[in-house]
């Protein structure tokens, strides 16, 4: 078990080095960014505590992936696997629980710590003979597979909207459609295998255009019930509602372009920093989107065999 965590540390350090940083500096920077973002969201919204819990659970959810859990089980046996998984979830949950404790949110911190332990003992099986239905089956893959992995988010967001309208809280309504947009950003966070880019008989420009259009269409489809409800119940706030929605779409475009600007590698520190800064100052998107777009075109040129662009 000790060897396993040593290996995880080596792998994490290697990733930080690949991003061009010394590991110690990487951890310090990560810590600073985490504190800064936490303070920022607690300053900006009253729903920050839910966001903290959600982000933490989404990281832990990834660690509970079936193949990963099965590997741990076959390598270490049932008892050690459970210990490893609990420790992993507690390590991931530690900064999030700490920030909740720091904000005097004892109940929420307790719930998150408890969930971290319970989720460690569960693996999310995809070994069903029946698949979860998805409205995005016609144009796979990001939204069709992503929807299945996060399907529980959508009813949650729709219920939140109903509550928001009932208690006359527009902020909660906006939070619920931001929750969906945030979820869809995750569908584009990791690069697909090169075959799935190569297979497209498209130029990089058309490829990116189709990716962005498809993502925008699907994200609009998922948020439409919330948007419509909010526009009906808060018609005077239409500029705010639509403004935030379009800003969310711009971030979706940014993530897609950031992903291909680093392709076939994973998005790294420079892309992450650019996105983080544009979160703080959205007008930066006007420069970042074209930058990522041009970089993506260059990166995709070889695989899509485009000699003209």
């Amino acid at each position, binding site marked *: 078990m000790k060897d396993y965590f040593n290996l995880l540390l080596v792998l994490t350090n290697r990733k930080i080095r690949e991003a061009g940083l010394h590991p110690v500096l990487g951890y310090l920077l990560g810590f600073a960014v985490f504190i800064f973002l936490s303070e920022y969201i607690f300053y900006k919204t009253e729903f920050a505590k839910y966001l903290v819990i959600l982000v933490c659970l989404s990281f832990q959810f990834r660690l509970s992936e079936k193949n990963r859990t099965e590997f741990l089980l076959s390598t270490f046996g049932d008892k050690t696997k459970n210990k490893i998984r609990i420790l992993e979830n507690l390590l991931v949950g530690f900064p999030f629980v700490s920030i909740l404790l720091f904000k005097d949110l004892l109940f929420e911190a307790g719930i998150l710590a408890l969930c971290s332990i319970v989720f460690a003992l569960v693996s999310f099986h995809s070994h069903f003979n029946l*698949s979860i239905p998805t409205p995005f089956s016609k144009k796979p893959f990001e939204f069709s597979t992503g929807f299945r992995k996060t399907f529980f988010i959508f009813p949650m967001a729709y219920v939140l909207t109903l509550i928001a309208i009932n208690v006359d809280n527009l902020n909660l309504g906006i939070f619920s459609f931001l929750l969906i947009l945030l979820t869809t950003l995750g569908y584009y966070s990791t690069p697909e295998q090169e075959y799935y880019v190569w297979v*497209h008989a498209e130029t990089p420009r058309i490829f990116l255009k189709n990716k962005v259009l498809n993502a925008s269409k699907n994200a609009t489809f998922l948020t439409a019930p919330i948007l419509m409800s909010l526009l009906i119940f808060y018609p005077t706030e239409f500029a705010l509602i639509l403004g935030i929605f379009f800003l969310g779409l711009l971030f979706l475009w940014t993530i897609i372009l950031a992903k291909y600007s680093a392709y076939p590698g994973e998005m790294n520190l420079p892309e992450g920093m650019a996105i983080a800064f544009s979160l703080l100052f959205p007008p930066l998107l006007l420069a970042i989107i074209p930058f990522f777009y041009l970089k993506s075109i260059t990166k995709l040129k070889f695989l899509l065999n485009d000699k003209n662009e």
Partner: protein
Amino acid sequence: MIKMNDLSKVFGDKEVLKNVSMEFSKGNVYGIVGENGAGKTTLFRCIAGLESYSGEIISDFTPLKNHLGLLLTDPFFFTMITGREYIRLLCNARGKTNLDIDSKNIFDLPLHQYASTYSTGMKKKLAITAILLQENEYFILDEPFNGVDIQSNIILTEIILKLKELNKIVIISSHIFSTLSETCDEIHLLRKGEQIKSVQKSGFKNLEQEMKEMTIGNRIDKLELK
């Protein structure tokens, strides 16, 4: 037609393909044979445009990759993508939409299930179905018979012969010589990245014997089995 002139590929200081020149004509099936590490997969990746190389590859349909159905030795599938969605994804990528996938499910695959739950053979059959429905002009099949049951192997052999009849170019690698001799018009032998020889159908028997002798040598005797 696909024509390669002096194709070479280097990984670090290791030359994995050395001045390979081959020509593939319409309506023919070609086999590429060689031991593990001979350079077969690298050659396929170069033709497909997945690897950079020195030398020249020309084809009558350009860019070649947009007309190529590529079956990888070990196809990768996303988690939570169904068989039907996988086929749709690959066909959409080539601009083929509104396909009646179910009626073309000749291997009787459970298309509503996640592809990741398929067995090795089923995964290969799914990948083959998808590239066939893309309506390509060229096909590269890297170990298409591996892990596939005998009934499907028979179907696959017939599919390859049908593609030949339809004037397509099919390039196959296989460790099972009989599958190649049944379908190929010409076989190219690679060894350590070099093109050792090219053999026409009439010479397949000798090639098989030669490969057997070369591969086995006196290895079995060394075991001194009693």
